[in-house]
């Protein structure tokens, strides 16, 4: 049954990658990266048990904790960019 779940997760990773490459907006890519992050956490948890090495769960825990720092950085990036654009009146 671990196999069934892993295959579902891998297929979804493929779908998310297609979304990340197609876009069209940059937010689709952020969303795809985020989906990818959660799916990686799940995949790592499942595979840790597939291998019978539960101490490898630390890795999934790392991702669960710090994946979202990247997404927050994106939010901060757009926020400061829109503020900078508001000051200079946009540079493009």
């Amino acid at each position, binding site marked *: 049954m671990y196999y069934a779940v892993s295959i579902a997760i891998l297929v979804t990773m493929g*779908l998310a990658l297609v979304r990340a490459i197609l876009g069209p907006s940059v*937010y689709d890519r952020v969303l795809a990266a985020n*989906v990818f992050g959660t799916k990686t956490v799940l995949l790592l*948890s499942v595979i840790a048990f597939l291998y019978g090495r*539960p101490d490898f769960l630390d890795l999934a825990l790392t991702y*669960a904790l710090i994946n979202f720092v990247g*997404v927050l950085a994106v*939010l901060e990036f757009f926020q400061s960019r829109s503020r900078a654009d508001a000051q200079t009146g946009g*540079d493009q």
Partner: protein
Amino acid sequence: MELTLDILSWILMTTGGLFVLIGGIGALRLPNIYTRMHAASLTDTMASILVLTGIMLQAGFSLATIKLMAILVFLLLTGPTASYAIANAALLSGMRPDAAETSPDKAKTPTEPSA
């Protein structure tokens, strides 16, 4: 007892896998960013709960279960927050949620943030 647990965890994990797939298809096929986010984030949360609970039943009562619980708690906290952050960033850049819009490729959604 053992068998019941196995069947239960099997059901949980398979349903979780199904949710994962549905979310992936939704994130690929739905027409605009907000609907796609809707599909991806909700199924993400549900699938995490189902899959991780399924594994927990397999792990029994051990350190691994505690770690899995921690993973689940952190995923439940960060997943929706990340979705909020993305939606907020999209909204800040001037993309309006528009229910009438159906085509993903029409130039109505800007392909770049309207900087």
